[in-house]
């Protein structure tokens, strides 16, 4: 019962600050781009540009204010990391141990490519007589599926 009274009370109060007014398009684009790089503290893994939570909105306002004040992208990112740590950046900065997360997939691709190349170098058996002998009978002989369809229809 008290829960419902509480609910009644709560429903009348809502986040009523919609966020600050947008800047002109080029600067607003910068705000949005920066917003996509910064992590919303209250949500799970969303950026502050994407999240509609109150904390995200407040932080977007801050980004807008800093962009309007002429700060550089790096200064704005530093502002947030000085308060929340590297955690605030959705893209791990490419330095130190973080380089692993960028390099290891590349290594895997290269290594795997080499492994495939080595497998390919094994001798390939000459294609069976289907090419030479049957060519006069049926056109494109190197489409075995078509061959199979025709063979089946003839059955």
């Amino acid at each position, binding site marked *: 019962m008290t*829960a419902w009274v*509480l*609910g009644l009370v*709560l*429903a009348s109060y*809502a*986040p*009523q*600050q*919609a*966020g600050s007014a*947008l800047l002109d398009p080029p600067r607003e684009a910068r705000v*949005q781009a920066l917003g*996509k*790089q910064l*992590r919303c503290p*209250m949500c*799970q*893994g*969303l*950026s502050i540009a*994407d*999240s*509609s*939570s*109150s904390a995200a909105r407040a932080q977007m306002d801050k980004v807008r204010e800093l962009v309007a004040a002429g700060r550089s992208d790096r200064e704005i990112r530093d502002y947030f990391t000085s308060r929340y*740590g*590297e*955690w605030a*950046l*959705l*893209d*791990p900065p490419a330095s130190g*141990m*973080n380089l*692993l*997360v960028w390099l*290891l*997939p590349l290594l*895997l*691709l290269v290594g*795997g*490519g080499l492994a495939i190349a080595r*497998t*390919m170098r*094994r*001798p*390939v*058996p000459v*294609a069976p007589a289907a090419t030479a002998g049957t060519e006069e009978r049926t056109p*494109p002989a*190197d*489409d*075995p*599926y*078509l061959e199979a*369809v*025709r063979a*089946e*229809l003839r059955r």
Partner: protein
Amino acid sequence: MTSTLGTTLVLGALLAAAFGAVVGIEGGLRQRAGALKIVLGAVTAFLLCMLGANLTMVHALVTHDFSVHYVAQVGSRATPLVYTVVSLWSALEGSILFWGAILAVYVFAFARAHRHDPPTNPLLALGTMLAVGVFFAFLIAGPANPFGRVSPVPPDGPGPNPLLQNHVLMVIHPPMLYLGYVGMVVPFGIAVAALLRGQLGDAWMAVLRRWTLIPWTFLSVGIVLGSWWAYAVLGWGGYWAWDPVENASFLPWLTATAFLHSAMVQERRHTLKLWTLSLSLGSFLLTILGTFMTRSGVFNSVHSFTQSEIGPTFLVFLGAVLIVSIVLIAVRGPLLVPEGTLGGVASRETAILVNNLLFAALTFTVLLGTVFPLVREAFSGVRISVGAPYFNRMAIPLGIAILFLMGVGPSLPWGRASAETVRRQFLLPAGVGVAVVVVCVAAGLRGAETLLTFGLAGFVATVTLREMSLPVRVRMREQAEPFPRALWRTATRARRRFGGYVVHLGVVLVFVSIAASQSYVVHTTATLRPGERFQLGAYTVQMTGIRNGVDPHRRWTAAEVRVTDGNGREHLLAPRMNFYERSTDPIGSPAIRSAAFEDLYLTLLAFDQAGPSASFNAWIFPMVSWIWWSLPFFVIGALFAAWPERRRVRTDAAERVPVPSKARSPGAAA
């Protein structure tokens, strides 16, 4: 009483699984034919106990029996009946109980389907699957016991998580994902059987393939539904955030897809056996890892449940399965001698090999990115984030490469292809691809990666449609069959091929929609009073008023708007904010107007009852609903591919492998 009944049934399941696992593995290794009957009995007992336990829990939920621990946790008298039933899987313990039931159904279906097979393989496979069942039954009976008794009995409960009550998709998405996830235990058992025996014949390979296709289909559907849910419910306009749990469902899908392709090479060339089996083992391992990620509370994600002792237990199980898999691969793997070789560079095998490499790289990258924050914290104590920007940057090039291969593979023949063939096969599709890019550029679209995706989509669609239509045309010409008959005959004569191409078309749809909906978004935000309007693209949005409402489990406030689209038609939308007692922030419900080629997406940011006024976020997402439209392609394609072929020559009953899934195919062969 309910608690006792439930716990007893779970213990019964544990005993049945343990017994069956021991008999199965031992009987399989010693090649004891008589053991199969015993194992089949154990499987049936396992099924009955698990189903019974689940039904007991559902009964307790529906009758609001708050003396049962789980019901006290997620039940509530205010929750509508549908969501009460759904709350079976809405929280940790219940979802593991549900997992146990689905596991039992899958194992039973497999046992039924293969009860007449030569017994050694099914014995080993069933033994393995039941061993997995032992773990889950133990988990349910012990650390994750939902049947504990609560005293004093509370009069009411808090209800399930509010996010799970917002949308009907929440009813379908988890079961689909579970059917996909849990189903991976079957190919795992089959692969372990093959490794234990040190041989992989054609018949058993076919079994492995079919039993991977079924959970793969459910997993695909579950993932697409999950992203649809995220889009329609979470209100940020996105459908994929590279959240750890989204990644957890994606990883086994990637390895299973790679498997389905390398299985073709295995079938044609009798090579790559160990790699193919490793993919099967990997799919199951990733399922367990994914469950760990979701359940352990170690990862920060939308699905994170509270931490409990389940995490360490899962970790031990994960370690055990990993060790068993590694030992099997290292010791028995080399016994799987390739019986053939691969073709030349320009051959379908090579294309599939490269495809596998790309899938493996993508799997590795997603896994690495998801786990990396933990790695950094474990080794240096620093907390970092690896989020969407990283995953997108890595996944997009890989995805584009995979898309390209989707057009190359089907164009090339098996074995060697001459330069002449290559030129002939690629000329038309490449031309179509380039034409698509030219048309897009002429229409004003920009963005290198996006245009490349569109061009490749045209390329792949041409290749796929050509491969599908070629036999149809041959039939029409040489057999004088009318088109529908020719199409049907073609499809049913080469089901896997046809089904595979249908799925490819679905995948092309997904690529195109993702590219369009990410690159050409239009966005604005505005604050309106009633009567005022704002413009977005061709749409005019006018606010008409604010409305409040009360549901049994929440209260909401909606801002009503009238939207006029480019054709002058009017639509009434009402984006909402929902207030649940349990959350500090209200949870918004977006309002979406879906047209054929774009979606108008509105959310309510803030409102003022006194004004009245409301602030909105508005987006236009081009082509986004085409992603959900890929679902029929996936399902129809997979149905074709999985449907058993009628044998012309009936040998003995052991060769027939009927479609096992009761849930999907009503007219299944006996």
